[in-house]
Every structure is written in structure tokens, then in C-alpha cells.
């Protein structure tokens, strides 16, 4: 029974591998194909070798972790040193093919009238005649010059000649036809009546890895993702290329990018600190009130105060966007009615930040309240009794017993809350979308953008084109910071020691 299940799983896996492998081969993705082979080998080994037994249990989880987390991280690092983005989307071979496929009409080019024939297999044969009556036969990209009484002409007579109506119908097919005229020229359709000689604009020299312009002989060499002539004129489109630390140099050295980046960076830190501080202070305050055994209705208060935490944050953020609406929002209506003026919540940089902090306080204080309640309850009553005997005031008890003992269990959670808010994309994006925009920024940066929302906009939303390369290098900066924070936290909580203990 167990054996049967084992071979069934292995069989299904291998069929899947084979299926994907065929796809990969047919789309010529050889690198991924090799990776897949290695993966398949590993999977079979794990299932067939007795020593591989424990690894069977790890296989599914490990697979998804490697493919969907580890690989994207590595790939992010790679993209950060490339110029991948608008204008440099294609691979080099694709760009060469595209440039080589550009043709210009020769100024004094000769026109060829043509008749088209279709053979039994459906292939097109084209009979070209120039002004002097010389005739050429075009078939599958090749041209043959014809003698006066060429035997090929008789063969053509057996095929069906296309009528004028057929020609119009076959326009697309005809305009896709091209015939090698000489090394750099091609015969291509000019209009419904004639073909003409076109000059290939650029030809690729594989040995020197350069494009040569046929007309002028100018040599274009690949520099930083573009083919470029000695004067620095670039051919578009560019291609994907490794540009080293170029993105980082832009990030830290180009005033129009660095200025907004630094502002975004500072606000990110402020935002994370403010979020943790406000939610923690309010949460702790409420926890202390609710921890009082003499307070009536504690349970009721607790379940009501916890409600904001139970609502998905994306819904809350969108609701608050409505409440903060400058013209019609209820908050401004209340302000208007009580103090007689309203606040430009989402238009003014400072007020937009205030709105964000208020929203995040609403979202986050219940969490802090719960963890503080838990921590407070774990502090023994005898501590306070001893303090009372020693004559300590309430404040002294709070300062010297509650806070230190609370911090032991809560501090690591505050650090992870900082890391979480550092990357709290949805709150920022859904309430303000990073707006209002920073004036004069070369990249799409706003006053309330934090690093992660800035990255998102660089990669997916810029009106001036996407910039995956720059976006990925900002991501690396975030990786470094959140990585350092979390690592520090692991050290602090002893999670790493847990791993070591576990051997």
C-alpha cells in the first residue's frame, strides 16, 4: 500500500516533469531545461534512495520556497545590476533581429511588376518583370533569373494565377514576402502593383559583435545596453544588459533621483517609528485600564476595542480614505461644524502624513493592546504587593516594575512591528497612493511614499516608463534594512539559538 502510493506520486511527478520538459525544449529554454532535469533527478533520488526518506516530506515545501522566494530574491539582485526597463526590454538577439529587419527603399530603385501563382501545396510563386522586360522568378525567398523560353515558365502555367481580387485578399501574405536580391538588398512589396529593391539598413557582424549601417558604413558597437556609433549616437530599441552599479550610482549620485529617494527614505523611518510609538502608547494605556480587576464591563470594552483589528486592513484603509475626503468626508464635516474650518487631508504633505498615522493608529492599537494585556497578566501580583509594602507610589510601581517586565516580552514584538510598518505597503498605497507628488522629481516619488510603495511605482506605475533595474536596486536597500532589523530581533529573542539547540 505504502509502496503503491510512493510509486504513484513518483509517476505523477515524472509525467509532470516530462510534460514541462517538452514545453521547455520546444520553446528553446535550455537553461531552465537543465535546471528542471536536475530537479527531476533530485526528486527521483529522494524517492528511490532509502537515505532520501526524510527529504520526501520536505520536497513540496522546499520546492515552492526555492521557486517563489529564494529565486525571486536572487533574481532581484541580478536585475538591480541590469538596465531592464522601458527601452531595454528585449534580449540582445531580439534587438539585432529587429534592427536587421529594417529596410529602406533605394532612392532610384527599380519597380518590378509581378504576377502571382499558387501551386498545389498553397505556396506562392512570383514572376517579376522589370521595365526592360527582364524576368525573375521568386519562390520561398529565393530569386532565379529566367531565360527567354525557360522551362520554369511552363511549370508556372500549371499553377493557378491569382486574379486581382485574390491579390487584394492576399495583401498580408504578399507584404510578408521578401527575396534576397544581393548581399544587402531585398525585393519587397511596394504596393499592390509592384515590388521594389530595398536596402537592409543594418547588418550584424557576428565576429566583431557590431552592427554596420549599409549606406554609410558606420559601425555600431554594443555599449551599456545600446548599439552606439563612435560619436555616441544610440540605436533604439536598446537591449537588456548588465550595467554594474549604474543603478546604485543613479540612486545615490543623480540629484533628481537622490533627492526624492532620501526624502522617501527619511519618511519611511519616521513612519515606522511613529506607527510603533503611537499604537504602542495607546495600546499600553488601554491595556493598563482594562487590566484593572475592579473595572466593570472590562470584557465588553475589550471586545469592542479589538474590532478594528478584525477587519481586513485593505477595507479599513479604503473606508478611511472616504472619511478623510476633503470636500465631502465626515471628518471635515465635523471639523467644519465644530471649529469652522476644514483640513486638506490628502492634498497637503503634512496633513497626508497625519492622516496616515491616524489610520495606522486605528488599525494597530488593538494589536498592541492585546499583547500588552497578555504581558501585564504574566506579571505576578506579589511584585506589586512587595512594592506597596516598601511604600512605592503608583508611578514608581509602573516605572520600576511594569515597564521593565513588560519590555522583556514586548520589545521583540515592537521591533517586528517596526519592520512590518517599514514595509506596510497597503496602508500607504490605499490611503494616499504616496501622494501628494514631490515637485521636480525625475522618478514618480510622493511625499508620503515609503520605500516599498516607491519601488512599486517605479516598476509598475510610472508614466515615464517602467524601470525594473532602479526598482530592484531600491528593493536591495530595503532588503538590507529589514534583514538587519529581523536578524537583530532573532538574536534578541534567541530564535537562532533555538536552531542550534535543535541539532
Amino acid at each position: 500500500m505504502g509502496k503503491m502510493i510512493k510509486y504513484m506520486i513518483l509517476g505523477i511527478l515524472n509525467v509532470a516533469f516530462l510534460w514541462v520538459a517538452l514545453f521547455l525544449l520546444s520553446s528553446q529554454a535550455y537553461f531552465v531545461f537543465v535546471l528542471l532535469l536536475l530537479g527531476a533527478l533530485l526528486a527521483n533520488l529522494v524517492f528511490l534512495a532509502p537515505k532520501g526518506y526524510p527529504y520526501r516530506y520536505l520536497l513540496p515545501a522546499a520546492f515552492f520556497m526555492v521557486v517563489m522566494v529564494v529565486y525571486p530574491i536572487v533574481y532581484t539582485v541580478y536585475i538591480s545590476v541590469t538596465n531592464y526597463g522601458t527601452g531595454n526590454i528585449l534580449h540582445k538577439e531580439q534587438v539585432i533581429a529587429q534592427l536587421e529587419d529594417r529596410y529602406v527603399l533605394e532612392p532610384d530603385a527599380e519597380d518590378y511588376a509581378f504576377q502571382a501563382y499558387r501551386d498545389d501545396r498553397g505556396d506562392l510563386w512570383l514572376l517579376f518583370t522589370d521595365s526592360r522586360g527582364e524576368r525573375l522568378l521568386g519562390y520561398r525567398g529565393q530569386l532565379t533569373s529566367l531565360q527567354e523560353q525557360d522551362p520554369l515558365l511552363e511549370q508556372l502555367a500549371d499553377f493557378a494565377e491569382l486574379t486581382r481580387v485574390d491579390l487584394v485578399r492576399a495583401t498580408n501574405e504578399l507584404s510578408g514576402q521578401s527575396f534576397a536580391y544581393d548581399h544587402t538588398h531585398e525585393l519587397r512589396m511596394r504596393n499592390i502593383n509592384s515590388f521594389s529593391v530595398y536596402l537592409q539598413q543594418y547588418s550584424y557582424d557576428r565576429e566583431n559583435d557590431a552592427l554596420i549601417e549599409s549606406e554609410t558604413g558606420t559601425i555600431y558597437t554594443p555599449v551599456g545596453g545600446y548599439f552606439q556609433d563612435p560619436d555616441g549616437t544610440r540605436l533604439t530599441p536598446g537591449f537588456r544588459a548588465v550595467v554594474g552599479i549604474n543603478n546604485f550610482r543613479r540612486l545615490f549620485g543623480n540629484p533628481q533621483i537622490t533627492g526624492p529617494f532620501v526624502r522617501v527614505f527619511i519618511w519611511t523611518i519616521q513612519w515606522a517609528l511613529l506607527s510603533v510609538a503611537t499604537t504602542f502608547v495607546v495600546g499600553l494605556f488601554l491595556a493598563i485600564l482594562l487590566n484593572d480587576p475592579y473595572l466593570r464591563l472590562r470584557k465588553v470594552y475589550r471586545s469592542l476595542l479589538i474590532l478594528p483589528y478584525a477587519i481586513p486592513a485593505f477595507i479599513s484603509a479604503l473606508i478611511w480614505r472616504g472619511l478623510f475626503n476633503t470636500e465631502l468626508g465626515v471628518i471635515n464635516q465635523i471639523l467644519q461644524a465644530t471649529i469652522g474650518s476644514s483640513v486638506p487631508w490628502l492634498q497637503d504633505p503634512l496633513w497626508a502624513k497625519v492622516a496616515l498615522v491616524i489610520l495606522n493608529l486605528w488599525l494597530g492599537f488593538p494589536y498592541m493592546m492585546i499583547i500588552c494585556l497578555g504581558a501585564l497578566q504574566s506579571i505576578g501580583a506579589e511584585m506589586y504587593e512587595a512594592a506597596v509594602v516598601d511604600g512605592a507610589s503608583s508611578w514608581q510601581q509602573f516605572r520600576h516594575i511594569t515597564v521593565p517586565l513588560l519590555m522583556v516580552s514586548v520589545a521583540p514584538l515592537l521591533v517586528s512591528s517596526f519592520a512590518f510598518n517599514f514595509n506596510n505597503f497597503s496602508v500607504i498605497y490605499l490611503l494616499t497612493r504616496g501622494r501628494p507628488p514631490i515637485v521636480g522629481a525625475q522618478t514618480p516619488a510622493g511625499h508620503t511614499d515609503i520605500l516599498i510603495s516607491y519601488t512599486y511605482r517605479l516598476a509598475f506605475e510610472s508614466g515615464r516608463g517602467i524601470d525594473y533595474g532602479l526598482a530592484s536596486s531600491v528593493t536591495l536597500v530595503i532588503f538590507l534594512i529589514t534583514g538587519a532589523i529581523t536578524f537583530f530581533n532573532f538574536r534578541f529573542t534567541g530564535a537562532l539559538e533555538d536552531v542550534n539547540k535543535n541539532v
Partner: protein
Amino acid sequence: MYRKHSFFRALWRHVTLLLFVVFALFPILWVISASFNPANTLVGQSLVPRSISLDNYRQVFTSEQYPIALWIKNSILIGLVTSALVVVMTSLAAYAFSRFRFRGRREGLFASLMVQVFPQMLAAVSIYLLVLSVGKIMPALGINTHAGLIMVYLGGAMGVNAWLMKGYFDTIPTSLEESAMIDGASPFQAYYMIILPLARPILAVIFLLQFIGTYSEFILASVLISSSEKYTLAVGLQLFIHDQYASRWGVFSAASVLGALPIVLLFMFLQKYLVSGLTSGAVKG
């Protein structure tokens, strides 16, 4: 620290707490009220609507341009499938980490911890490009498919959950399994027939936490899903209301109430587990 209350001591406490209750509940009540208010705009809202109608809810279910009910269904479906697969896969991995000794075990545990250092959504750009190229080979798993999105979620969920679940498995004594194995059970049978039933509470908690997390996930879904009938609620609702507060507030409110309901109910049900789970490290807000 706490003493019996005098009248004024009690009074200021209740007043303060009530103020915070108002702060916490006001947006919720405001939206619930708006969802029943026939005026579909921000103008003319009041906490107690002058008349009550179910028009907004009807719109949620019938609008063809904005199939909000379908988005809620998509979110629930994606959440259920993701959570189920996550529970199966992480419990397998956690079982191996907890019960077997093998080469690379320590490194594996370390890796599952370190992966949490890098939130998956940070790599949204490369995940997008990865799924794009997967889609060229297998369109069923590419951009704008639920299956592709679920695959991405599966990867992101492994680290923290495997770690939590392994901790729980470690607390289950091995004697039961040992006696089962003497009777001829294979390790897989021990996992399936002894560990899983005993670990039901942690399986449930991870399933529900994963469901809540997936349901609320916004950034990856908005990057990977591009057509209206496939949106999750998080993506669709945002596009629906985007700068249209004046004209769509009522329907949006109804959609918010309906969309939040499954999670709020789960949360109520989960509360006692959550409090202990939260203190051990899952963060939101």
C-alpha cells in the same frame, strides 16, 4: 497597583474608554449605516440613515461592470485553496524537521527562519517577471491566473508556518508513534494517523491565519491579476472606489461590510487562539 474605585476614579476611566470605543467603532458604524442608505454618495450621510434600503447590497450582487460578489468569491476560493495546501505541505515539512534526523536538517531550519527576513512582496518585480515567463511555457500558471497567484502565495507561506508547526509537533510525545511503529506502522502512517489528529488545533490556527493573510493580500494580487472577472476583493474594491467616493460610497460600503464579514466572523471564532499566537510573533498593523 489596582485599588477599589472611588466614583470619580471609575468615572474618568469609563469616559476615557468610551472615547476610544467611539474612535474604534465610528468608521465601522458609519459604513454599516451608509450601506443601508439609499443615497449612494458621501453627501447626505448620517449615522442613522433616514430611510433604509437594500439597494446597495443588490448592486453588489448584480452589477455586471463591477462584479463585486464575484471578487469576494475569488478571494475566498483563493484563500481556501492556498490555506489547505499550506497546511498539507508545512505539516509534512514540520513532521520531518520534528521527527527525523538527517543531513541538512539544521540548515533547513535555519533557512526557513531566514526566509522570513525577506518579505516575499519585496520581490514583487521579479515574481512578476518569473510568473510572466512561466506563463509562456504553461499558460495555466501564468500572469492573470488564480493558479499562478496561489503558487506564489504557497512559496511565501512556508517559512513562518513550518517553524510554528514544528514547535507544536515537538511538544507531542513520541511514545504514541513508537508504539504504533512497533505494531508495524510506517512513519507516514504515524504522521497521518497519530500526529495530524493530535495537532488539529495548530492545523486549524495555521489554516485560518493563512486564510486571513491571503484574503487581505494586496500587492502581489494587484501585480499578477489583470482582468476584472479574476480580481480578488482587495484588488477589485480598490479599483472600484478609486477616486469615485462621491458617486459610489453606498455600494462600496455594502461591499466592505460583506467583504469584511467572513474575516470578522473567523476572528471572533479564533480570538482565544489568536491572543496566544500574536504574542508569539505574528504581526499585523
